[in-house]
C-alpha cells in the first residue's frame, strides 16, 4: 500500500485536462526567456532552457508564478535538477515540463517538483495514470512528500 504521495483524486481527474496537478488558476502570460525575465520587472512567467543556470532566478522567486523547464531531448536530464533545486529554494509556484517529455519520465518529474506537463507529443492519459500510480513506495526522498522506504522500515 502507498504510505504517501500517490496523486490525489483531484489530479487523476485532470489526466485528460493537459496534465496539470494544481488547483490554482494557471498563469495567462506567456513565459519569457530568462534574460528577458531578469529585465522585465512585471514578468511572472519564465522559461528555462536546458543548460541555463537556475540559481540566478533564486532572488526573484517571490514574483514568479510559472516556470517552464524545457527538455530538448528526453535524454537530457538537466531539467530534473533544475526543478528540484527550485523546490529546495522554496519556490511553490507552477513548474511545467515542456519539450520532449515522455510518459516514462513523468513519475520522476513529479517527484522532482514538476506539477504540470505540456509535452510536444501528447501523452495518452491512461498511460500517464498508470505511470503515476505504479510505484507504491520509493527508496529515496526527492522534492515531493513521499516517505522513503528507509524511514518506513524504522517507523
Amino acid at each position, binding site marked *: 500500500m502507498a504510505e504517501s504521495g500517490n496523486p490525489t483524486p483531484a489530479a487523476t481527474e485532470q489526466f485528460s485536462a493537459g496534465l496539470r496537478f494544481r488547483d490554482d488558476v494557471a498563469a495567462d502570460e506567456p513565459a519569457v526567456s530568462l534574460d528577458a525575465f531578469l529585465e522585465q520587472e512585471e514578468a511572472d512567467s519564465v522559461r528555462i532552457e*536546458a543548460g541555463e543556470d537556475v540559481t540566478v532566478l533564486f532572488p526573484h522567486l517571490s514574483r514568479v508564478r510559472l516556470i517552464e523547464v524545457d527538455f530538448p531531448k528526453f535524454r537530457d536530464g538537466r531539467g*530534473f535538477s533544475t526543478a*528540484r533545486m527550485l523546490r529546495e529554494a522554496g519556490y511553490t509556484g507552477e513548474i511545467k515540463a515542456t519539450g520532449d517529455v*515522455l510518459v516514462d519520465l513523468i513519475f*520522476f518529474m513529479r517527484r522532482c517538483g514538476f506539477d504540470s506537463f505540456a509535452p510536444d507529443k501528447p501523452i495518452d492519459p491512461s498511460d500517464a495514470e498508470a505511470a503515476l500510480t505504479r510505484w507504491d513506495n520509493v527508496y529515496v526522498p526527492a522534492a515531493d512528500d513521499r516517505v522513503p522506504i528507509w524511514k518506513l522500515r524504522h517507523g
Partner: protein
Amino acid sequence: MYRYDKYDQAMVDTRVEEFRDQVRRRIEGKMDDDQFKPLRLKNGLYLQLHAYMLRVAVPYGTLNSAQMRTLAMIARKYDRGYGHFTTRQNIQYNWIKLAEAPDILADLAKVEMHAIQTSGESIRNISSDQYAGAAADELIDPRPWAEMLRQMTTFMPEFSYLPRKFKIAIIASAEDRIALRWHDFALRIVQNTAGELGFEVFAGGGMGRTPFIAYCIREFLPTTQIFSYLQAVLRVWNRHARRDNIHKQRMKILVHDLGQEEFTAQVEEAFEHFLSLGEDFPPAEYDRIAAYFAPPAFEQGLSDEIDLSDPAFARWVERQVVAHKAPGYAIANISLKPVGGIPGDITAEQMELVADLAERFSFDELRSTHAQNLVLPHVKKADLYTVWQALVSAGLADANLDLISDLIACPGLDYCSLANARSIPVAQKIAERFADPARQADLGELKIKISGCINACGHHHAGNIGILGVDRKGSESYQLLLGGSGDEDTTQAKIAGPGFDEDGIVDAVERAVEHYRAVRSPNERFIDTYRRVGMDGFKEAIYG
C-alpha cells in the same frame, strides 16, 4: 547475505510489470525504437550483432546457490546453455529474444535479482571486493554499504537521465581487488585517528576512449553522510557536464576539465546544501542491513593443515586458495579461464555444480570477480580436496589465478556491434601459446587484458599487457600496450608502437614476456620490471 523485505520485493516486481508494459507499448507501435531504446537499456537489454544481450546485475558480486541455479535455468531456457561473467561482476546472456525478456526478469525477481540499471545512462551495479566478509586483510565487510548504495541509487528521480553511465565501487582493504580508481566514483572504507569509520572518496575514473584514473576528492567522509555526498557529486555532474558529444559526457571529463580543486570545491558546496536538507538515512537502517551480513557460523578449533600429497591438488591450492580471516577456512577461487576457452563463459551445468558446492561447502555463498572468475568465499580447509575433485570433473579446476592465461577479454567482434576486431580468438591463442603450467608459474603474476575497440570493456588500459583491437584499412589489427594496472598501484598502460595482425600480436606478447624474463630481478613481477626498466627495452625486444 542480504534478503529482500516486502519493500525490496515490491520494487523489483513492479519493475517487471513496468517493463512488460513498455515492451507491449513498443510492440503495439505506441513508442518508436528511439524512445524504447533507453528504457530497455535501463533494464539491461542491448541489441548486439546477432540478437539481444541481457545483462543481469550481480549486486557487489554476491550470489547464493538458488540465484546461481536460476542463472543456469535462464541460460538453458532462454539462451543457448551458457552465460558470460563480465568485468563488472555481472552476467550476460547473448542470445535473448525481446518478447521473452519480461519473463526472464520475472524469473530473476523470484530469487531477488534484477537487471535494473545495468546499462544505459544510469547508475550501474555497485562493484565490491569478491573476498568481502572473508578476507584476512579487510577493515570491515563493505557489503552492507554496497547494499545501502544499491538501494539509494535505484531510481533516483533527479538522476534518471544522467549525461552518461556512472559506475561505483567500494572496498575495505588496502589491496585493491576491483580496479577501484578506474571507476567514476569509488569508496574505500578507512578509519580516522578517532577510530571512526568513514569513506576515502575518489572520483572521475573511467576507461573508454579517454582513460582517466580517479582522483581523491575527500580523505574522510563520515559514513552517515554518504547519501548527501553522492547526490552532491551527481548534481554537479548532471548540471555541468557537456550534453553535445556523447564521448565527452562521462564524469571523468568534467572532473578533469574543472581540475581536482575546482571539482572538489563545487561538490563540497553542493554537499553542504544537501546536508542542510536533513535527508540522510537513519542509522538504524545501516544496522538492519549489516545484520544480514553477520559472519556465518564458522566452526571453532579447526586445523589449518591441508593434505597436499596429490601434486595437482597442491598446485591448485597454491594458486587458487587465499587466506581467510577464520582459522581452518580458506577462500577458493574458481577459474573461468580454461586454456582455449572463452574468458568468463560458463555453462548451465557448471553453474549448477558451482551452486551445489556453494551450498554444501561455502555457507551457500558465491562471488563473481572483475577478472571474470568465481569464488567460494568460506570453504573449510578440510573440504578443499573434495571441492577440487568436483571442480576437476566439471573442467573448472584450472590453476591460473593472476597468471598469463587468466586473461580478461571483452566479447569483441564475435558478438559486439561496436567492435573493430575479435578479442576471444586472441585470448585463446595467447592462452594456448603459454599453456604449459610450468612456464606460466615461472612468469608469475601477469595480467593481460583485451578489448575489441576503444570502448575498453576488456580493461586494456589497466593491463600489465593490454591489447586493443583497431580497424586498419578495413582489416582487424591489434595494438600492444604495456604497464597498466587495476590494482592498488593503479597505472594506465602505454602504447608500445605499431599494431599487429592476429598471429603477430601473439608473437609480440611472447617477445615482451621473454624480454621480461631476460631482465627481471629475482621474484620481480612483470609490472615491476616494466616500471624499473621502462618502455624502451621492451620496444626494442618487440619491434627489433
